[in-house]
C-alpha cells in the first residue's frame, strides 16, 4: 500500500455552483484596498478579467457586495456602466464597446471612479463652450428685442 493514499485529496471539478473560494479572496483584497483608501486616500482597482474566475464566482461576488444608490451609464464609444455597491466606496465598472460586448470589468475602490470625474482640461474647454452659448443667447435676444 502506497503511503500517499493516506493524503486526502479533493479533486476540483469546477462544476457550476461549487464555491471556488475566489469570491472570498477578492472580498479580502477589497477590504484591504478600502482600508487604504480611508487612511491614505489612495484609490485601488481590481481587474476581474485578469482573474481565473470559475462559473458562479462573479455572481457570488456581486451578491456579497450588493447594490448601492448610484447607477450611472456613460455613453463613450459604447456604454460604460458604473454602479456603487452596497459598500460605499466600492464600485463595479463594466466597459462595453459599440457592439455591446464587454471589453473590461473592474472593481474600483475610490471616492468616485476616475471615469465619472470631469477632467480639469475638459472643464476649461467647457467654460469656453458655455461662454459662446451665452453670447449666442444674448445675440438672439438682441435680434428679437
Amino acid at each position, binding site marked *: 500500500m502506497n503511503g500517499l493514499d493516506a493524503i486526502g485529496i479533493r*479533486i476540483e471539478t469546477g462544476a457550476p455552483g461549487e464555491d471556488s473560494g475566489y469570491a472570498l479572496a477578492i472580498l479580502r483584497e477589497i477590504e484591504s484596498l478600502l482600508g487604504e483608501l480611508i487612511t491614505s486616500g489612495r484609490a485601488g482597482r481590481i481587474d476581474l478579467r485578469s482573474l481565473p474566475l470559475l462559473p458562479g464566482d462573479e455572481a457570488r461576488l456581486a451578491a456579497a457586495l450588493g447594490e448601492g444608490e448610484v447607477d450611472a451609464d*456613460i455613453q*463613450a*464609444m459604447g456604454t460604460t456602466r458604473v454602479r456603487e455597491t452596497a459598500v460605499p466606496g466600492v464600485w463595479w465598472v463594466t466597459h462595453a*464597446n459599440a457592439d455591446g460586448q464587454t*471589453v473590461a470589468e473592474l472593481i474600483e475602490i475610490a471616492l468616485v471612479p476616475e*471615469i465619472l470625474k470631469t477632467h480639469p482640461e475638459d472643464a476649461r474647454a467647457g467654460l469656453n463652450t458655455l461662454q459662446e452659448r451665452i453670447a449666442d443667447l444674448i445675440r438672439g435676444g438682441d435680434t428679437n428685442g
Partner: protein
Amino acid sequence: MADDRTLGEALAQRGISRRSFLKFCATMTSLLALPPGMAEVMAETLARTRRQSVIWLSFQECTGCTESLTRSHSPTLEGLMFEAISLDYHHTLQAAAGTAAEAAREQAMKDNYGKYIVIVDGSIPLNAGGAYSTIAGRTNLDMLKETAAGAAAIVSVGTCAAFGGLPHANPNPTGAVAVSDIIKDKPIVNVSGCPPIPVVITGVVAYFLTLGTLPELDSLGRPKVFFGDSIHDRCYRRPFYDQGKFAKTFDDEGARNGWCLYELGCKGPVTHNACATTKWNGGVSFPIESGHPCLGCSEPNFWDAGSFYQSLPTPTTSVKGAAVAAVVAGAAVGAAVGAASRRRKSKAAKARTPVTVDDLK
C-alpha cells in the same frame, strides 16, 4: 507635412471624448496584464505625446494582417489606435501613390529619425537578388535595411514577417526569410499569427507608446502576455480532452456536442497564442469554438508541420511513463504531448507532402 498635434488635440478635433480614450486605455491595460491603475497613466501619457510616426512596410504578404487590423463592423475602441499614431506610409491605406508615396516615407524617416516605429508584414525574398518582390524598383531587402536604420523599434506583424510564413514553406522558391534574419541591431517584437489577432497588434503599440519599451518577450520574440500560454492550456474544450471525449469526424455526435478536436488534427498543444482567451471578431469566437481544429498558425514552419488534419501523437503511444501517470494534471500531459509533438513536427517538415482530399475525409 509633419503632424505636430498631440494625441489629445487630435482626439478632441475628431470629437472623441476623453472618457472614450480612458475606456480604450482601461481595455488595453487589462489586455496587457498591466496593473489596473496604469489606465490613467496610459491615458495621460498618450494624450500629451505627439502622434507617433509609424511606417508600415508590406513585403511578400497577402494583406491579411492589414485586413485583420482594419476590418470592423462599427467604430471600435481598437480603432482609436489609429488616432494615437501618424501612419505615414502604408500601401493599402494611404491616399498617395507612386513617387508621392515614396516621398512621404522618406520625409517621415527624415523628420522622425531614430524615433519612428516600423511595422512589417510579409516575408523578405533573397533569391534572384531579391527580385521576387520589389517596390518602386527597389528590393524589399534594400528598403527594409534603409528604413530600419532610423527606427526606434520594429514590429513584425504576422507569421510571414515573424518567421517567414507561407513563402518560407518547403521548397521556399523565393528564398523568403523573416525580418529578424536580416535586422540584427534593432529591438524587434514578433506578433505572429496568420493573421494575428488585431488587439494584439494594437496592444503592443499602446505598450510601446506608453512605456517606451517593448513588453516582455518569449524565446521567439513574441510578447509573453499574449503568447505565454498554449491554446491547449486555455481551451474551453479542455475538460473533454481530459475526459477522453473526442470528435472523430466533423459531423459526428462528438463534433455536435463540442468535444475536443484533438483527433481531427488540432495543433493546440504546440501552439502559443491568445485565441482561446482574447478570441476573434471582437471576442465572438475562435477556430476551435467554431468547430475547426487549431492550425498552429502562430508558430514557425507551421505550413511544413504535417497535415492540418492528422492528429498529434497521443499520450499512450508517444509519452514516457511518468507523464502518463500524471494524466489528471492536464497541464503536465499537455507539456509532454507538446514536446513529443514538436519532435514529430520537425520530422514532418522534412517529409512534407501536399494535403490531399483524403486528408479531409
